[in-house]
């Protein structure tokens, strides 16, 4: 089999599975549905691994068109693949996590009536995501971009009978529209100024357009590169949930947990990071755009971490953690350390998927109670979940030698070396973020797995917060005398399989990805201007030295402090958080965090309500009054008016009638005889 067929087969295998499970799921039953989709994704993963191995062994990367969809004004819209190291790595991550999630779903969704539909959706997602990462042009990128958005929408609203789920998927959809609008404008600018939508052609032409300017508002000149990159990045902000377009991600937790792991932690949300890395030749040409990226990432990294501290829903803690980590990746992009961003993307995909799936396992053990205040002491009952969660959390906070450590420390190093104007703030944000991350991660960890079994203390365990699934049929929680059980093997196996890369992959992959030439010819960095990568390279000579060096750096001790304070606050002296809670409530900070910095208020009451108000005005004035009232009904009324008028003329008097006749005859006479007499 030649490589092109393999590349074609990789996305098509999951698509085939999705179609079978989606269209014929009712016919073939649950077992066949999960078999066919898992087989599709497994084939895809196997081939992706083969492709990666092939490329690592010195194989040629591929860039070619598979199918020309249409040609407009000399611009070809192609389906094409660009398979290089970056793509191959993404393909492996996507298909591996997807395979784990497929397996896990067998256990997690086994009671759900929408079983086949769910498998169809996640396979369809895998197809879409592969199309996105394998694309060699902007159109297919956009197709994949929208397709993953669609599947995300469908899956957030998977339990579409729940009003909260439909609200959440609508919100995700609308917020992503804002980002996609920018993205589409960016693609439009690329087409307008580069005359092509093919990556290779665009990148080749980029240097000559480096100093090009455009005029958006009359009398202003803007750097073409800056505008294009910022617009493209706005797309990434929507998809990768960067401040201020992050609001949809926490709500997306309304979807089933497996997709939270797959879509909203490991893969789709990192599409923006991937895209910016892919566009590195463009971004490198605009300091302004990079600075913008850096600052947005820093804001997201720090401030979303704060929100993680006050969440009580286990999935929401992980969701805010995801937001914060996406912020870290974006910071790395801004610092021109694209390889580091992608590296963190990869490690994060493993440990965050692990944390989400572990959270799902906990939720199953707790009988669909998601409130961490009702948990505690679960380590005694769910050993595998406990150990894997601990490993995932340790990786997340950057414990030396675990995968998260290498990627996160590299980000901090890169930002430190960055010379952009926003670098100072970004450095503060990512360093402070280490403490915050450690604190909220271990707050959750301790509350869930250690301490007393809280559900046994509650007399009415049904009273918990509104984030839980109120109308879910399985929602019962644990009774005071119940004992949680470890989840079945289809759930724990993926946890174990994900825990392995979460621990090891950082040490294994850091040398080639950070200092080696894994991303040579793929990611372009202007080393003269942006020294961040060089600085990373200096410190990250090899996994052992980098790990040992960590013990004398600030981030490590901040992480230790975070874990220690979480332990102290929630295990030793629970009065302290209560007192702090009262204190922060009294100064209003608590309220600010609970309301998530009022972003939802701004959007719902500001933009959405404003849009609706404008729409109402246009509807009332434009549609009802002008079109309906004046044009449609107005015509009818006018006809009616005329009708009544002409009816009045019919007076019933014979002399009126005769007068009309004579008048008519006179009219004809004047017209024709008058004309004739004039001629004569």
């Amino acid at each position, binding site marked *: 089999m030649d490589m092109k067929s393999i590349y074609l087969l990789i996305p098509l295998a999951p698509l085939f599975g999705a179609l079978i499970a989606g269209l014929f799921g009712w016919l073939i039953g649950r077992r066949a549905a999960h078999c066919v989709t898992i087989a599709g994704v497994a084939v895809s993963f196997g081939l992706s691994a083969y492709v990666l191995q092939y490329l690592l062994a010195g194989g040629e990367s591929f860039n070619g068109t598979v199918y020309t969809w249409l040609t407009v004004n000399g611009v070809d819209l192609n389906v094409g693949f660009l398979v290089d190291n970056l793509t191959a790595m993404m393909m492996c991550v996507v298909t591996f996590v997807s395979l784990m999630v497929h397996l896990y779903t067998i256990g997690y969704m086994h009671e759900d009536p929408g079983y086949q539909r769910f498998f169809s959706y996640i396979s369809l997602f895998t197809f879409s995501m592969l199309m996105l990462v394998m694309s060699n042009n902007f159109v297919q990128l956009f197709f994949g971009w929208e397709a993953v958005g669609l599947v995300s929408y469908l899956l957030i609203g998977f339990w579409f009978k729940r009003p909260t789920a439909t609200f959440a998927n609508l919100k995700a959809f609308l917020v992503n529209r804002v980002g996609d609008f920018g993205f589409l404008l960016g693609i439009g600018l690329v087409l307008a100024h580069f005359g092509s939508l093919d990556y290779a052609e665009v990148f080749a032409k980029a240097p000559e357009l480096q100093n090009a300017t455009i005029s958006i508002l009359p009398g202003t000149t803007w750097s073409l590169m800056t505008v294009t990159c910022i617009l493209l990045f706005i797309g990434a902000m929507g998809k990768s949930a960067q401040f201020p377009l992050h609001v949809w991600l926490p709500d997306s937790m309304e979807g089933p947990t497996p997709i939270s792991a797959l879509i909203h932690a490991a893969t789709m949300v990192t599409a923006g990071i991937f895209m910016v890395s892919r566009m590195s030749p463009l971004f490198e040409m605009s300091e302004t755009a990079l600075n913008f990226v850096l600052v947005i990432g820093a804001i997201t990294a720090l401030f979303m971490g704060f929100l993680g501290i006050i969440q009580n829903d286990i999935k929401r803690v992980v969701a805010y953690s995801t937001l914060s980590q996406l912020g870290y990746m974006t910071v790395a992009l801004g610092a021109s350390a694209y390889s580091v961003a992608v590296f963190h993307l990869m490690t994060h995909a493993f440990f965050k998927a692990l944390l989400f799936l572990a959270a799902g396992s906990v939720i199953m053990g707790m009988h669909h109670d998601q409130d961490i205040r009702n948990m505690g002491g679960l380590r005694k009952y769910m050993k595998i979940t406990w150990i894997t969660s601990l490993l995932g959390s340790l990786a997340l906070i950057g414990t030396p030698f675990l995968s998260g450590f290498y990627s996160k420390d590299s980000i901090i190093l890169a930002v430190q070396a960055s010379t952009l104007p926003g670098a100072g703030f970004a450095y503060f944000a990512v360093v402070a973020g280490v403490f915050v991350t450690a604190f909220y991660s271990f707050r959750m960890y301790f509350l869930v797995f250690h301490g007393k079994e809280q559900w046994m203390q509650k007399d009415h365990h049904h009273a918990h917060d509104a984030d839980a699934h109120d109308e879910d049929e399985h929602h019962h929680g644990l009774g005071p005398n119940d004992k949680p059980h470890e989840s079945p093997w289809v759930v724990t196996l993926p946890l174990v399989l994900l825990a392995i890369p979460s621990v090891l992959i950082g040490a294994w992959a850091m040398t080639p990805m950070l200092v080696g030439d894994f991303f040579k010819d793929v990611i372009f960095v202007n080393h003269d201007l942006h020294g961040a990568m060089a600085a990373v390279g200096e410190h990250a000579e090899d996994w052992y030295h980098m790990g040992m060096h960590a013990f004398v750096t600030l981030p490590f001790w901040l992480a230790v402090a975070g874990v220690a304070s979480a332990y102290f606050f929630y295990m030793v002296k629970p009065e302290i958080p209560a007192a702090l809670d009262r204190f922060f409530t009294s100064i209003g900070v608590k309220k600010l965090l609970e309301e998530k910095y009022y972003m939802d208020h701004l959007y719902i009451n500001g933009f959405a309500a404003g849009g609706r108000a404008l729409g109402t005005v246009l509807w009332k004035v434009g549609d009802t009054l002008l079109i309906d009232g004046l044009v449609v009904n107005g015509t009818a009324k006018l*006809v*009616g008016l*005329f*009708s*009544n008028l*002409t*009816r009045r003329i*019919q007076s*019933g008097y*014979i002399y*009126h*009638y*005769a007068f*009309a*006749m004579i*008048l*008519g*005859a006179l*009219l*004809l*006479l004047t*017209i*024709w*005889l008058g004309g*004739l*007499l004039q001629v*004569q």
Partner: protein
Amino acid sequence: MTWTSLNPWVATPEIFLLCAVCAILLIDLFISDAKRGITYVLTLLTLGVTAALVVAGHEPQARLGFSNSFLADALSDYAKLGMILGVALVLVYGRSYAKARGLYRGEFFTLALFSLLGMMVMASAVNFLTLYVGLELMSLSIYAMVALNRDSFASTEAAMKYFVLGALASGMLLYGMSMLYGATGTLDVFAIAKAIQQGSANNLLVVFGLVFVVTGLGFKFGAVPFHMWVPDVYQGAPTPMTQLISTAPKIAVFVFTLRVLAQALEGFAPDWRGMLMILAVLSIGLGNITAIAQTNIKRMFGYSTISHMGFVLLGILVATPNGYAASFFYVMSYLLMGAAGFGVLMLLSREGFEADQIADLKGLNQRSPWFALMMLFTMFSMAGIPVFLGFFAKLSVLKEIVNMQMVWLAVVAVAFSLIGAFYYLRVVKVMYFDNPESSEPLIAGFDAKVVLSINCLLLLVLGLMPNTLMTVLIDAVQRSIIPGVH
């Protein structure tokens, strides 16, 4: 005058009809009211024989008679068949209605037959005097028929208005004809055409006469602004008479118009085309708009007729054989539609109850689903909804208009027809969606019900194959009116 130039056989159907009317007039004197059925049968029989004679006497080429004042050609023969059918439908639909109101007398039949005789003469006349005599015979009979219900205030008022205004119009027509005579020195249609062609006619006089002739014709068509009599007479006259006024005479007037305008005054086509255009646009516009405000359905039909006649004028003003044929098709189609509409009204009427309000049709579907469906066919056909005959009638006229590069005129006509669809569909809405106000059974005779059903079904059947009727009529017109040949 020699026998050859007299050639009375060209008028065989008319001569038979005249004799038969006289006979029926006499026979009816000796028949008691109870046995009036005999007169009815005799009258229908007479109509049948007359039609048979028309068909039997039909020859491919035109035949002149009575010193070139009477012409039997394809146009006149087909027109006569149409008129006979129209009058027969009046008698069949109107029988129960007339019986219930004391109108079921000999005069009803004989006057109808005399008016038919007048129409037939009009259709064949090629001399202004003959034309005028036919017109007056038709008109006077109809005036009398409108007044037949002598005790009805509305009927007599309608008859009076009709008569006075009709006299005015006749006077104008006659005045116009006298001008044409003055200009050309002849009353013969073909001689006038020849004189105009040779340029021996005084243009000023001809146009002067033309205006008055058009005025008179406009009155008979009921075209705006000579339409004022139409709603009042339609409303006031007993329904069978209304049906008569709105159907058969229109065919006679149509042929009359072709004789005068298309044949005698062919050379002045640019002038009369402009005049007809004014009349047509005003008729289609005013007819459709004013019909909307009507609550009396007979009055509504009056305005509806005005707008339909506007379409007939549109076809004529194209001034090509195809245009005339389209109008001929339209006027024949309208005969079927108008007869069906009034037929349903008479079906709903009974002793002491006159179905003449739109509200009287309320819930017809619950009382008689079949006749509600028939009325629906009629209304759809009148509104010009596709597959029904009325659509193809409108289409053929509009097609000719567009062919003559007068697209704006077609647009105006279509726009007003669209407005007109409102009042036709309102009738349908009332029949199907409103609750009936009365549950009286429909009392009309079996013959009327059968004929009415056939009549309405024809609107659909002919609509499904509109070419059958259209080809025949085009052929008739093309054989009869050859531009430039006199």
